[in-house]
């Protein structure tokens, strides 16, 4: 805890120093945007130094041996721990907290929208709540699975003792709390009301909360890029002997694909926000009245943000494909097709961004190609569905909570995919653009594809994280509850959207009131389901029955070690001799543990074995 304290103090000192220096040198008020920027940068440096950056990096730069925090005890969860399992839990807890905060925003919006006219929020506050809900949830979807499960599971799944760059991994996590603080602190500077997309020129002219948004997202982008590189290098260089690319577990493949995207495109979000920031504080005029055009912002922004939805759902694909063979007790159908599908999604997703701009005044000749490329993405996505349904087909299904959530995923993401075709199609998009149809479609894909994957992963790997089993009955009730209520919430929104209800406006014509009220009530019930989830998991983490190392009889490596795994994951070196998903195949072996190599491996890790 001492490090958290030191980090907070240094962050505060840095923030104040940055503001003081700016005000002294440049003049102006301490809430000027320039002052806030320098305050944030120095505060960030202070935070990272205080939390352990000084010991982990600074000492090495000074020519001494780097130090990191101890590897035992519960306080390591609040320190600069380089253990990927600790970092995974840190990410998981952080992002579930953020998910709940974002959920409160959603509840506020639905309460406001329960009746036409003005309710608890005025129109500008509504925009601010929309923006806050949007960016928090996008952050959860982008980094929730990758951060929590990617960090925890991937090194074990590929048979490594840790990530390739453990210190960088810790750094990437500790960049996240300042992001959350900056976003949640934005209301003190007037909040941001330009949506999570923060389109220019509105984002150039709105209140100063926007500058905190920009700084936070640029920092978060850095964290994503570092995390993505770490996952890629881990999978490339640290696979266990015998683990060829064709034997890599599908969840690792999915995270590989998502990280490939994330480290190639995340900087475009940062770039678009840097341009906005420069326009706000440095007098440039990318989006100003003489030169600029908002279309430039949209191009750069969507060049990240369309691939970003694949960064969100690809790990979801991975989770579902990972657990379906386990619960169907069958080999994963069309493993190679699923991998090819996911990699094709990576390739295609960077050439479809302009389908967000069919009504923005972009050159007409671009409409056709972007429509066709967008619709082409359904082909590789179909391969993933093929793999999943082929595995379920004639399987001996074991209806546990993860599988129920996987069915919820299947249903929701299918609806999300099919409704997307009408948005990719230029003619229908011109009618549907900026209506609640888009909202409903987006939530079906992202909640359906990413958050349901996150929930399924949470239940699937919960015994591995904690060594204890969650309450199965409550888990199943939750799975059905969340799936049904999610659909009750968003199906009416398709209807009001097709009939022309605008999104991002806290008011609507009387005619839509019935459907909206139904959606609002469903949304509140949906929100309540998360209390059951949190209660179940918290209680089970402490009091649940012991789960044992492999409660699901899974074949992948993370289930072959104790729950939770030992300090450096393996006490002896695993060697891969077969395919990970050959459930029910006579005499098939996946991994053997080299007893001969045990001594060597233990010595290598410096662990007491």
């Amino acid at each position, binding site marked *: 805890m001492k490090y958290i304290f030191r980090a907070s103090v240094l962050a505060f000192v840095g923030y104040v120093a940055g503001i003081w220096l700016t005000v002294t040198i440049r003049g102006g008020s301490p809430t000027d945007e320039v002052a806030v920027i320098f305050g944030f940068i120095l505060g960030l440096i202070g935070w990272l130094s205080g939390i352990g950056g000084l010991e982990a990096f600074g000492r090495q730069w000074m*020519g001494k041996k780097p130090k990191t925090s101890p590897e035992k005890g519960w306080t390591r969860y609040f320190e600069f721990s380089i253990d990927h399992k600790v970092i995974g839990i840190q990410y998981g807890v952080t992002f579930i907290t953020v998910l709940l905060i974002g959920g409160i925003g959603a509840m506020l919006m639905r309460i406001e929208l329960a009746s036409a006219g003005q309710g608890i929020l005025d129109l500008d506050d509504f925009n601010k709540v929309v923006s806050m809900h949007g960016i928090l949830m996008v952050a959860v979807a982008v980094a929730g699975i990758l951060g929590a499960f990617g960090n925890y599971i991937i090194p074990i799944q590929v048979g490594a003792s840790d990530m390739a760059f*453990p210190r960088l991994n810790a750094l990437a996590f500790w960049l996240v709390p300042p992001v959350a603080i900056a976003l949640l602190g934005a209301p003190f500077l007037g909040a941001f009301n330009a949506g999570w997309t923060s389109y220019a020129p509105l984002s150039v002219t709105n209140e100063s909360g926007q500058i905190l948004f920009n700084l936070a997202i640029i920092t978060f982008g850095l964290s994503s890029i570092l995390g993505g*590189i770490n996952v890629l290098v881990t999978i490339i*260089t640290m696979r266990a002997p015998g683990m060829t690319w064709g034997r890599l577990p599908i969840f690792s493949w999915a995270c590989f694909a998502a990280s490939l995207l994330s480290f*190639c495109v995340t900087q475009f979000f940062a770039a678009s926000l840097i341009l906005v920031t420069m326009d706000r504080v440095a007098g*440039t005029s990318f989006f100003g009245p003489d030169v600029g055009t908002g279309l*430039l912002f949209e191009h750069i922004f969507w060049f990240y943000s369309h691939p970003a939805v694949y960064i969100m759902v690809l790990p979801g694909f991975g989770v579902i494909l990972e657990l379906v063979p386990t619960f169907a007790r069958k080999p994963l159908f069309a493993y190679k097709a699923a991998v090819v599908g996911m990699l094709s999604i990576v390739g295609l997703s960077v050439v479809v961004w302009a389908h967000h701009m069919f009504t923005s005044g972009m050159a007409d000749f671009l409409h056709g190609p972007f429509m066709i490329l967008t619709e082409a993405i359904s082909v590789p996505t179909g391969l993933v569905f093929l793999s999943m349904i082929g595995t379920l087909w004639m399987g001996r299904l074991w209806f546990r909570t993860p599988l129920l959530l996987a069915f919820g995923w299947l249903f929701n993401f299918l609806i999300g995919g099919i409704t997307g075709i009408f948005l990719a199609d230029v003619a229908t998009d011109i009618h549907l653009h900026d209506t609640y149809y888009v909202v409903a479609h987006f939530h079906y894909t992202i909640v359906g594809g990413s958050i349901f994957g996150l929930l399924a992963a949470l239940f699937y790997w919960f015994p591995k994280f904690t060594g204890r089993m969650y309450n199965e009955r409550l888990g199943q009730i939750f799975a059905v509850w969340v799936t049904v209520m999610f659909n009750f919430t968003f199906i009416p929104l398709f209807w009001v959207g097709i009939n022309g209800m605008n999104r991002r406006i806290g008011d609507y014509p009387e005619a839509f009131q019935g459907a909206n009220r139904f959606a609002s009530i469903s949304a509140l019930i949906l929100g309540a389901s998360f209390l059951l989830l949190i209660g179940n998991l918290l209680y089970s983490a402490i009091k649940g029955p012991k789960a044992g190392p492999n409660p699901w009889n899974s074949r992948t490596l993370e289930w072959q070690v104790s729950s939770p795994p030992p300090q450096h994951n393996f006490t002896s070196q695993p060697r891969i001799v077969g395919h990970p998903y050959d459930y029910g195949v006579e005499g098939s072996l996946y991994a053997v543990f080299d007893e001969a190599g045990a001594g060597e491996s233990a010595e290598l890790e*410096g662990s007491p074995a």
Partner: protein
Amino acid sequence: MTTDIVPDAVAEDSHGGHGEYHQDTAFQPRANRIGLWMFIFSECFLFAAFLAARFYSTGTYRPEGLNQALALTLTMVLLVSSISAYLAEVSIKYNHRRNFKLFTIVTILLGFVFLAGVAVELTEAIQHYPPETPYGTSYFMLIGLHAFHVFSGIVALFIVLFLGFRGHFGSSDYWGAEGVVKYWHFVDLAWVIIYPTLYLF
């Protein structure tokens, strides 16, 4: 490039007792190289975004009154600094510590010359095409971004130089120097693209 040489001393050191860092950077040159290349690749996209913004908002327009002579000189300075950075890396690879320090110092000095030139450039630019103008917008953005990278490269070179004086690095373990020099080459390469974008088109 050898990838498997780990001096016993380093391996022993890095697997010390409780709470010590158990996976030293020197331990995994292959992962480090791949990671660095990925980081550089990632940075390329960042520059690409700003270059795209320049062409998108102003096409290939450039105003009269650009200081071509200064820009060309600065390009030369930066290219020469790349050579000296390379020589520093090769020196430490062959354990020529003196040359390593010498060439690192030369690189840092050339970096400072470049930054000074950029400062002159910017003070001139602010009169002829201030940031509010179409060209000035892209100009200040690209030059500023690149100068920031040069500055961070100089800081990194300083750390490497400091460690060199402290007796770190050697023919078997020069990853720190190698990584910084590769980054420096990348910064040069970025200028090789930015220079024609702003001055020659």
